[in-house]
């Protein structure tokens, strides 16, 4: 009977005509055992993309808190309330609760890579080591990002575990800094055993650091920064000495003004899948404005005109007033959506050396480096009396140069004033404004530990 055939066909169709096993058609799963070369390469690029995700955001947020910048964003008043008046909202991942998750995502990405790289039969042992050194260096940079924004003794370190596990325990800030320092050394060891080349190509922002041997120079530069931070936080001379040692193996260079910008950069772009640098705004209408303190305290060049660093990075614009704050200058150091942001560059290394020498070296060595930067970067006259000043006076001079040399490059002002105990030197604009010393631990981090907001 026809009807039977029809029913049979329909019943069979209905029960089994299609495969119910559907794999993820949209995106890859995390890197697994025995990854191929191309999967390792994608994971390596991915680690840098993850590291990039907090970079521009940190420049503006820490810039506001450190009074380098204002952000007059009509869509969100919190840039001039929460960051300048408080209280910081630990519950908002875009404000008080920011600059935490993105770093830990980078850390998880690096751990995922480190957990399986030993199983990659497509890579030689040297290539595996080179990959380890790369991932560990970026992981250290990510942990440093967490520490830059958070001064509480509530830093989770042992996060290389399944997400369903109990949250990693908190450790003190000092322990975390020590861990970062050690991680950079471990990375150096792996890079040293890393052979002649990485098994992947680094983006152009790492030009000059794209072999394991050259990448060590970047690794040592970060090490120097970490040691100087540790030194000013209480470690003192041993860390300054370690910083000088690290700088010796870094790419520090005082052979001419052309090398001041040498360094490692993170690329932005407008190509498919890439993200633009959102700090690139038309300076005449930009939301991101320059704090007026910078113009007030800028020195004048011998030939007239303000500090060349200030003039290069900022430009005058129609005045804007929001909520009692006024500025008539915008930043222009990121002119295009493809403008890269420095991770660390030579000019900072020179000032790190000055700072270390200020503790364990000579006044003349400090003056030499400070004046090199003043003359070659600021177009300013050398400070002739610097060598003879007291160490605290020289530190103030170094911090002044750091303000203009590293302006709007990653919250350096806030970090510097805080680690040197000079937070009170950050200017306040309005009655009721405050100086934040740290961002809070995100609410979700506290909730996961079954304590309430503010209790962690």
């Amino acid at each position, binding site marked *: 009977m026809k009807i039977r055939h029809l029913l049979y066909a329909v019943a069979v169709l209905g029960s089994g005509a299609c495969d119910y096993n559907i794999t993820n058609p949209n995106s890859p799963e995390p890197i697994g055992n025995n990854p191929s070369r191309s999967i390792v390469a994608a994971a390596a690029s*991915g680690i840098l993309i993850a590291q990039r995700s907090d970079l521009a955001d940190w420049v503006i947020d820490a810039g506001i808190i450190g009074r380098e910048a204002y952000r007059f964003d009509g869509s969100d*008043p*919190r840039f001039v309330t929460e960051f300048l008046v408080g209280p910081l909202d630990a519950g908002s991942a875009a404000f008080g609760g920011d600059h935490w998750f993105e770093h830990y995502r980078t850390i998880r990405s690096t751990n995922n890579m480190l957990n399986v790289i030993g199983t990659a039969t497509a890579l030689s042992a040297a290539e595996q080591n080179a990959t380890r050194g790369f991932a560990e260096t970026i992981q250290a940079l990510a942990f440093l990002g967490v520490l830059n924004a958070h001064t509480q003794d509530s830093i989770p370190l042992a996060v290389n575990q399944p997400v369903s596990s109990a949250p990693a325990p908190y450790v003190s800030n000092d322990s975390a800094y020590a861990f970062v320092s050690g991680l950079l050394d471990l990375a150096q060891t792996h890079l040293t055993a890393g052979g002649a080349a990485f098994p992947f190509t680094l983006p152009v922002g790492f030009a000059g650091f794209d072999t394991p041997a050259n990448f060590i120079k970047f690794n040592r530069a970060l090490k120097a920064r970490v040691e100087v931070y540790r030194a000013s936080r209480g470690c003192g001379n041993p860390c300054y000495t370690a910083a000088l040692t690290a700088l010796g193996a870094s790419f520090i260079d005082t052979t001419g003004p052309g090398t001041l910008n040498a360094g490692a950069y993170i690329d932005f772009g407008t190509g498919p899948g890439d993200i633009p640098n959102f700090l690139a705004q038309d300076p005449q209408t930009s939301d991101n404005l320059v704090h007026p303190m910078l113009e007030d305290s800028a020195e004048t060049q011998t030939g007239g005109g303000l500090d060349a660093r200030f003039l290069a990075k900022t430009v005058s614009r129609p005045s804007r007033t929001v909520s009692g704050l006024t500025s008539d200058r915008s930043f222009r150091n990121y002119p295009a959506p493809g403008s890269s942001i420095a991770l660390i560059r030579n000019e900072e290394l020179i000032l790190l050396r000055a700072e270390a020498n200020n503790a364990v070296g000579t006044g003349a060595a400090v003056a030499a480096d400070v004046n090199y930067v003043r003359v070659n970067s600021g177009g300013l006259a050398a400070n002739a009396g610097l060598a003879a000043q007291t160490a605290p006076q020289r530190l103030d001079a170094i911090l002044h140069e750091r303000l203009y040399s590293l302006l709007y490059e990653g919250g350096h002002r806030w970090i510097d004033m805080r680690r040197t105990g000079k937070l009170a030197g950050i200017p306040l604009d309005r009655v009721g404004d405050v100086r934040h010393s740290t961002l809070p631990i995100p609410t979700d981090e506290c909730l996961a530990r079954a304590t309430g907001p503010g209790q962690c």
Partner: protein
Amino acid sequence: MAVDRLMMGGIVGKRIDMWLLALCLLMAGTASAGAQQRTISGRVGNAVSNEPVAGATVGVVGTVISAVTDARGQFSLSAPDGAVTLAVRAIGYKRRTVTVAADQATVAVDLDHDIFNLEAVVVTGQATSVEQKNAANSISSVTAEELGRAPTPTIESALQGKVPGALIQMNSGAPGGGGQISLRGVSTINAAVDPLIIVDGLVISNAAIANGMNAVSAAAAGGNASNQDNAVNRIADLNPADIERVEVLKGASAAAIYGSAASNGVVIITTRRGQAGAPTFHMTQRFGQYRVSHLLGSRVFTDSVDANSAIGSGGSAYCNGPGGACPVFDTEAALWGRHDLSTETQLSVSGGTDNTSYYLSGLLHNDAGIAENTGYQKQSLRANIGQRLGQRFNLSVNMNVVHSLAQRGISNNDNSGTSPYLVLPFTYSFANLNPTGPTIGDYPNNPFERSNPLQTFAFLKNDEDVWRAFGTGTLRFDAITTAHQNLQVILTGGLDQFNQRNDILSPPELEFEGQDGQPGTVVLGKASNLNLTLAGHAVHTYVPASGGFQATTAAGFQYGDRDLNVTNITGRTILSGQRNIDQATSISIAEDLQPVRDLGLYVQEEVLALDRRLLVTGGFRADRSSRNGDPGQYFFYPKAAVSYRLTSIGGNDGDEIKLRAAWGQTGNLPTFGAKFTPDTTGTINGRFGTFVGQRSGDATIKPERQTEIELGADVILLNGRANATFTFFNKTISDLLLLQTLPPSSGQVDRIFNGGKLRNRGFEASLGYALVQSPEMSWIVRGTFFSYRPVIVDLPVPTFQTLGFGTALGAFQIEQGKSATQIVGNEGVVGDATPDFQMSFSTDADYKRWSIGMLWDWKKGGDVINLTELLFDFGQNSKDWNTAGQQRLADFLSGLTQPFIQDASYLKLRELNVSYHLPQSATSAMFGQRVRDARITLSGRNLIRITSFRGIDPEVSNFGNQAIGRNIDVAPFPPSRSFFFSIDLDF
């Protein structure tokens, strides 16, 4: 091939599949003919007018023999020898039984009007139904007549206030729909929130596909599209005029037989059919307009000193009148000030012969939006054809093609200074943004923000163009027809296919476009969706010779194959005048594929006994789906229900009380991809990279399970002139698809898993009373009431927040022992989105040629996070800045969240209509003899709104349809009220 795959389904799956197959074959093979001795013919008419009643079902009581009347109201059937009782029923009429003597061959039956549709049949399963007065669940039924009183372009707004237990709210006022149908309140936290929607047996897609405006608004920084794009959920595509009836299964006890897709209830839509008879034409022509229903207003500045209080300095440049007086410009009113002509033309023809029926309809709809470059157009063609093939086969084919174009401007949250209600908070009354000419350069820049909304709306294009085709074919086969049993086999196959195209063009000359260094944005979104449904049902009805009971056994399967495919391309930096995506300098592409396959099997038994007073039902459904961690595993959803009618209350024949109890389970499938842990991907300097994604999936994920008990009583009094229903429900949802917010130090945002329990108890009631019922006049009033309380009774993970913009701005916090919809701020709990109750009240009166009706919709309580007002306060620009705004902002800055968590109670006049049937003489004079009836109607929608909510509208949702975090107001598109003048002609 097919059989090979069948074997892969797992042991359990195979066994059930084969069992079903065997059952189908067994039933199909046992067809035989019964003994039928004599013919009874007759006519069914309206008791008042004596007009014929077409489509009435005439059945022989105690048997399964029945016939349907033709256009002249006539029927003919073969009946057993001896005296028989005929039961006659028709939609809109009360059931009536008549006795036909052994020697009587013809009969005339008059039917009384059934005011409250108490005797209409309602669904009890996928292929079975029962009279409303027997139903064991509170199943709401809305008729075409109730849907069509005040015109609306989309079906969800036509249902507002008409279904007790349904809270239906529009997400914004943007033309083209977009609304949430929430049945019996919260049923989930993170899983799907929309009810299953079935049109003529076909599961249709109600997907909401983001238009990609995020590329301009940057609401969710980065990414191509976002859930803040004010998307339209695609139920909007249906043409309300084609709908004959909407039935709503509200909870698990009624919807269990729809299995793991029915946790949010089921909306069953039946479209119109033709009936035997000469062609009847119906034409409706409407003219009307939309007007913005409410404006926020803003602070009016008096002089330059006043101006400087907000802008710091420079006020005298704007306020240079006498004494420094400020000019006043109302940009908000200018922006939303359009009220162009909107029109709608509907034409339908239906009719048929004994073997063929047809219903054909066409729609041309054109709404003008309240702002420039906004509006909604819809065209629809439908053909529903029924054909009898010999004695035992009946084929019906329904086809519908719809095209719509929605132009929705830009609204909701942004981070780019583009959404009007984020720009207006900083656009002061003394700023003149009016253009000096027609070109894009004639619009002044906004001195205080990044865009001029008048310029934005005049030149920003946001077109959503949708082509959609629905088609179902249903074959009914009467395998067995005897006096005491019949077996019908029903096969339905259908497809629902749509292509959605989104074109967004933000020209480079717009004020805000240069700010990211990439002037000009163009977005091309293309989405296609295919839903294939294949279902088979066998329904066996048995009435023993004694006639003591009627047993209905139903079994069947439902196979679904759904394939959603969304591609979104964003281009930046385009040349002036260009619109093609390949002219952009920088392009980013996103593609999302969501293939889903699932299969459900069910059996159900219903017994109607004790002179149709007792109904006992039991059944279960088994479901598998590719969305579950184990796609081969079947999940079982049982149900059981009983109802009993206490008839002839107080000695009155028509008065009765029905007591009912129902229990059942349904599921809510994991969201697509819940079983995967995808990496995030991107490029850096041209190199592809993968890194840790946001979400950690669960390879063992399974559906949520809802268990519902529904208890109720339905009362019919005054011989059907008054009725009331009362229902209490208690539903618990276990194995919740929880999205645990992870400690951010884990490097991932959240983790999906099954766990926890949500309980939701509520009460709903409806009342109807025909105050006057006479040939000259009728006056009916109706009311509904609904209230529920959702509580998180078990949460195996720490308290977490969902949606919202952080604690300071109010966040929805999921916490054990607390309301599922509590809103938490800096100071603790600051509100709750669950309303205290919802009520509606409607009245319909007919007097001679006049009809007047209205529908009021009242929601009491339920808080909304009003961030639009926060922004106005922050700009020192709120209308009440000097009296209250200043204080609100000071409170907020001191750390309070409370000022912006506001009671969103409302009372709305949803519908108002007055119509007049022209006298026959006038009709003939105007339209000719062929026109049987002509009616003119004046109608309005949302004409009156009473609320203490200070935002634009208490219904709006920044994030679209959401289970928990719906009530967030950030710069919505303002709702409008509409007025229409209609002419209806029947000929």
